[in-house]
């Protein structure tokens, strides 16, 4: 029983991180119709910048606040200087463009930080374990669960309850019509891209104390995030949540019961879902 609780929390903590990344990926696809291959690199950038901020300030909390906007601004700049010009082309061109951006960013990080992984200390408040009715559980992972839930609810409220969210949903549904009705589509795209990158950056900062900041963390997370959005359906925040939970659970229990084949479980689940819903649980047929 105690074990079950621990596994459940592990799955939720992983799902929280996955959600931070896949929500942005899904949002960008919904609004820009672009699969952002560089999304994982923004996550990695977040982790490395988090390391730098912690090293400079000696505290963890400022990193959580400062890094996401920085990553977001960088993302918005990249969108408006490159992607903006090729929205009318077939999707392969946008995918390749973001692939090029991913190469540039990943290699730049290697140049700046060197090949060794950088560890980040969690803040004192979140160090050690907490007693949950007889189960000792790392505080930091509990924090990830809370963070994932908070951001999930915040994104959902923003999209469904605010005027800006309304415009974004309008652009997602029919960008030409939204344009005719006076929405500044180009600006919406840039801002959404930036916001998605900021979310990925936040995910990176949050992940750093658990996984360290290392080269290759970007591709690892983007492949998982792809599986999440394939399961949940692209362009749907609810789908990202459901997908994150499913992948988080599959990886956690897979790693626990069948350590050598944890990856296989994830793909088996994905395959099973795709047989019945080729466009994901919450996705719409194109």
């Amino acid at each position: 029983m105690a074990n079950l609780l621990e596994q459940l929390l592990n799955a939720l903590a992983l799902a929280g991180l996955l959600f931070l990344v896949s929500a942005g990926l899904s949002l960008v696809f919904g609004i820009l119709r672009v699969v952002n291959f560089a999304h994982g690199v923004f996550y990695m950038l977040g982790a490395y910048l988090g390391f730098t901020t912690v090293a400079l300030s000696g505290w963890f909390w400022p990193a959580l606040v400062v890094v996401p906007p920085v990553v977001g601004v960088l993302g918005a700049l990249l969108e408006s200087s490159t992607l903006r010009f090729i929205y009318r082309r077939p999707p392969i061109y946008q995918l390749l463009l973001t692939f090029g951006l991913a190469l540039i960013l990943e290699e730049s990080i290697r140049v700046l930080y060197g090949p060794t992984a950088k560890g980040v200390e969690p803040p004192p408040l979140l160090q050690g374990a907490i007693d949950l009715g007889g189960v000792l559980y790392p505080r930091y992972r509990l924090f990830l669960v809370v963070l994932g839930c908070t951001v999930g609810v915040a994104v959902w409220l923003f999209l469904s309850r605010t005027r800006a969210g309304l415009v974004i949903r309008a652009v997602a549904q029919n960008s030409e019509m939204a344009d005719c009705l006076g929405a500044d589509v180009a600006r919406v795209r840039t801002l959404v891209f930036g916001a998605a990158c900021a979310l990925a950056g936040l995910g990176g900062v949050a992940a750093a104390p658990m996984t360290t900041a290392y080269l290759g963390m970007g591709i690892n997370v983007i492949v998982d995030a792809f599986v999440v959005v394939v399961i949940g359906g692209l362009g749907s925040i609810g789908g990202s949540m459901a997908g994150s939970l499913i992948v988080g659970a599959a990886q956690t229990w897979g790693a626990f019961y069948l350590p050598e084949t944890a990856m296989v479980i994830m793909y088996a689940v994905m395959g099973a879902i795709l047989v019945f819903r080729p466009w994901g649980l919450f996705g719409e047929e194109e």
Partner: protein
Amino acid sequence: MIPSRLSALAALVALAVVPWVLARHQLSLLTDLLIAGLFAMSLDLIMGYTGMVSFGHAAYFGLGAYASALVLLHFAQPVPVALLAGALLAGAVAVPVGWFSTRATGIYFAMLTLAFAQFLYTVAYKWRDLTGGSDGIAGVPKTPLFWGGPSLASSRAFYFLVAACVVLSLFVCRAVVRSPFGRALQAIRENERRFTSLGRDPRPFKLVVFVIAAVFAGLAGALFAPFRGFASPEVMFWVFSGQGLMMVIMGGIGTLVGPVLGAMLFILIQEVLSSYTEHWMIFTGVVFVLIVIFLPGGLVGTARRLGARG
């Protein structure tokens, strides 16, 4: 523009003559270029002619390389047996992957193929007993063409083997895309919904072409292993899949010959950049971005446009 038959003939003559013109290291670079060209060409079958963007094509190259390396190392068979093994293994694995992936279209297809490829990469990385893990398999021998037959150990002999494979594959692929089957693929690319409404199911076509493309990618990988003398997980990595897409775009999507030229140009750019800086990946990325924005038709597409204009 030069008539295409004439340029094809010129290319064949050039391929036959260069081994006596080039120095040894140049010849081995050219062999490398041709192997990459075969890989890019196989990708063009699904990407250019059927409109399915696979982001996991390196996996089949890698499967071919591993199968070939294992056959050469453990069973000491002639090279063609290893080539056959590589092509068959890649094709066999492509059947289940293609069956799942072709259920989805567009960007979902790209993500699924990437996910499966990363899965295969992980298997190659973790299955140390068979694949040697991250070290890969080294010391793959260049066995003769057949027992008692001509040796392939010299760089010139192996070059001819590779060139012959690439030219033959080019003809086979050309025949495929010009056959009724190939026409059907292009119909799917142009308008899948209309294809369906004409009473045909596109999925079997997509699955078959996916497997054919994997077979040729496997062949390229099977040539790579004895040529370089090793097979390692890097050749299955996502970066290589992305580079394959880039080779196709650089050369000209949907032209078969274009991707071969694109692959050659791509590797040459890499060679040049990497001789100047250790961090050539940054510049490769910049070249990608510039080409995608400014030269969407690639080499062949741009040449044709200029030819049509002049």
